[in-house]
């Protein structure tokens, strides 16, 4: 910022003050308050392991055959594009029945589930999700034979004007 833009009254102190105020404004005016809330203020955040345990019991999740494509850094946590692919077969006797998507840092980690059938031909699905803060995107696939396959991918969410 150049001096002539700010008028003659600009000193280092006032500049820092106004810059700080501007940053604070950006935080307050953020269009998604739930996303810009500081990481500590989450008393009712659910633990992903509890969520998975509740949904799948003690079944073993194999961490293979699933690939999550997601940005390493998502500039806007309100729109994080993810693509879930799996090389598992989509035959009529053995296919991917369900894709469960979780964002670990969200207050409610469960994002969506997608039921597929052999008519899809291929176990691939792309969507855009909201993420409250930097965390893992986790996917658990269920096959028609009852097996579970999973994957996790870290996504850094940067939102807010102060690099928060």
């Amino acid at each position: 910022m150049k001096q002539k833009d700010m008028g003659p009254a600009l000193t280092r102190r006032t500049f820092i003050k106004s810059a700080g105020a501007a940053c604070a404004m950006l935080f307050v005016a953020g269009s998604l308050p739930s996303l810009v809330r500081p990481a500590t203020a989450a008393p009712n955040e659910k633990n992903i392991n509890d969520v998975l345990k509740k949904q799948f019991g003690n079944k073993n999740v194999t961490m293979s055959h699933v690939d999550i494509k997601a940005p390493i850094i998502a500039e806007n946590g309100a729109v994080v594009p993810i693509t879930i692919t799996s090389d598992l077969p989509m035959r009529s006797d053995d296919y991917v029945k369900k894709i469960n998507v979780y964002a670990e840092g969200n207050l409610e980690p469960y994002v969506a589930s997608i039921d597929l059938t052999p008519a899809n031909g291929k176990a691939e699905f792309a969507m855009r999700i909201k993420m409250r803060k930097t965390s893992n995107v986790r996917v658990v696939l269920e096959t028609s034979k009852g097996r579970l396959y999973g994957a996790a991918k870290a996504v850094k969410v940067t939102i807010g004007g102060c690099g928060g």
Partner: protein
Amino acid sequence: MASVGKIKIRVPNTIKKGDIIPVQVLVSHPMETGMRKNKDGSVIPAYYINDVDVFYGNDKITHCDWTIAVSANPFITFYVKADKAAPIRIVYKDIKGGVYEQAVQISPQ
């Protein structure tokens, strides 16, 4: 928003019989979480699509169960094995009872 429920479907121009084709669908919807507040401090009520069905001909081929964590104006891509001439129909339902649907004809050569 006047355009809530407006749906756009995109499929490949030429489809061979048996191809696995990508189907891209965009629907206009605010997907309000129920956690955001207005300027006057009142909570904006939750308003989101929670149920999506995809039909190919008469068969339901895909179903989605969604929560507030799906982005506004949901844009999805899924795949369909184009083995018959039939419409692909997508039906969205939101929590206020809105039902939005659109179909596109698939004619594999």
